[in-house]
């Protein structure tokens, strides 16, 4: 039992390190090779985790090989477009200039329901509104609406909006984040001034957000019962 516990801990650490080494892309958008590696790693790690008769090396070595291959392949994909196309394929246009490309849909084995579903997920509820729909190499769909169906932007309407910059959490559960303060171009002195003005202190704040313009929002902690 203890051996299984320690082995699982060790494998967990190795898997976390492996996924970190492969990069953030691994977690969010899986390309073909990344999906294969993720499935294989989870499968390989399970064997020595359950079977204490197998040495841990029989899990570590294949994981290390997969990580190595994944990094090499992603580096090669950056260097060569042809290689990238061979591994990941290419984006396919299923709606081109407002016209549904049935040949491409058949190639993708995509049904009309799949198309409608993916469009709805992009907040498009009529195929007529779509100028272009592209199935990306990671399987997600990108949609460009027809110009007359696009929502007007402030730029189109000629309205000048103030640039408030990024809003960041400068205090989280009583802890001040210098990194967030720096992101919104504010200093500790500014924060101290705001807290003094509100007659409170950082320890009493649950969340405080701020932006570059100097707008802020404070939510204080609930009183403990």
């Amino acid at each position, binding site marked *: 039992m203890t051996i299984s516990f320690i082995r699982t801990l060790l494998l967990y650490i190795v898997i976390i390190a492996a996924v970190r*080494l492969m*990069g953030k892309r691994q977690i969010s958008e899986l390309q073909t090779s990344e999906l294969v590696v993720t499935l294989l790693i989870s499968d390989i790690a399970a064997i020595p985790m359950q079977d*204490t*008769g*197998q*040495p*841990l*090396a*029989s899990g570590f*070595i294949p994981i*290390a*090989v997969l*990580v*190595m291959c994944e*990094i*090499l392949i*992603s*580096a090669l994909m950056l260097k060569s477009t042809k290689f990238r196309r061979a591994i990941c394929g290419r984006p396919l246009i299923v709606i081109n200039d407002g016209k549904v490309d049935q040949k491409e849909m058949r190639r993708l084995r995509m049904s009309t329901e799949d198309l409608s579903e993916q469009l709805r997920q992009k907040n498009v509820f009529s195929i007529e509104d779509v100028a272009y729909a592209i199935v990306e190499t990671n399987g997600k769909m990108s949609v460009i609406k027809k110009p007359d169906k696009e929502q007007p932007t402030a730029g189109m309407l000629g309205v000048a909006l103030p640039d408030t910059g990024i809003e960041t959490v400068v205090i989280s559960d009583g802890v001040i984040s210098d990194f967030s303060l720096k992101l919104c171009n504010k200093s500790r002195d500014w924060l101290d001034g705001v807290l003094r003005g509100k007659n409170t202190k950082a320890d009493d704040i649950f969340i405080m957000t701020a932006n570059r313009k100097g707008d802020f929002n404070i939510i204080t902690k609930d009183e403990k019962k």
Partner: protein
Amino acid sequence: MKRVWASAIIFVFLVVICVIGTNTTKKVSAQMAQTVTTAKEAAAKGDMDTALKFSRKASSDWRDSHEYLCTFMPHNQLESIDQTLSVLPMLCYYGATDQFEAECERGITQIMYLNESQLPSIANIL
């Protein structure tokens, strides 16, 4: 670029580990097979004292190697050799020569199989 270097380091590390593993298995199995063969030959000549000495040496050497081998080899393969080698000194001590020789032969085969199973040959890979 840092990740590519990390992958290169992993590659070198893996190659080193694999080479060390294969060489260690070769060395240990050759040494063990030699000791067991000597014990068997001594028993065949009727020299039971030498046979006992070498069978004890085989058991003790195997115990030392086992700790190292089990870090990269399936434990069930090693356990079967454990069981074979552990009975050799007792068989020799009580004069069961025929059974001792048979067990020695079994031990040698198991050790050679252990070595062969770790070699990166086409048969093992496929």
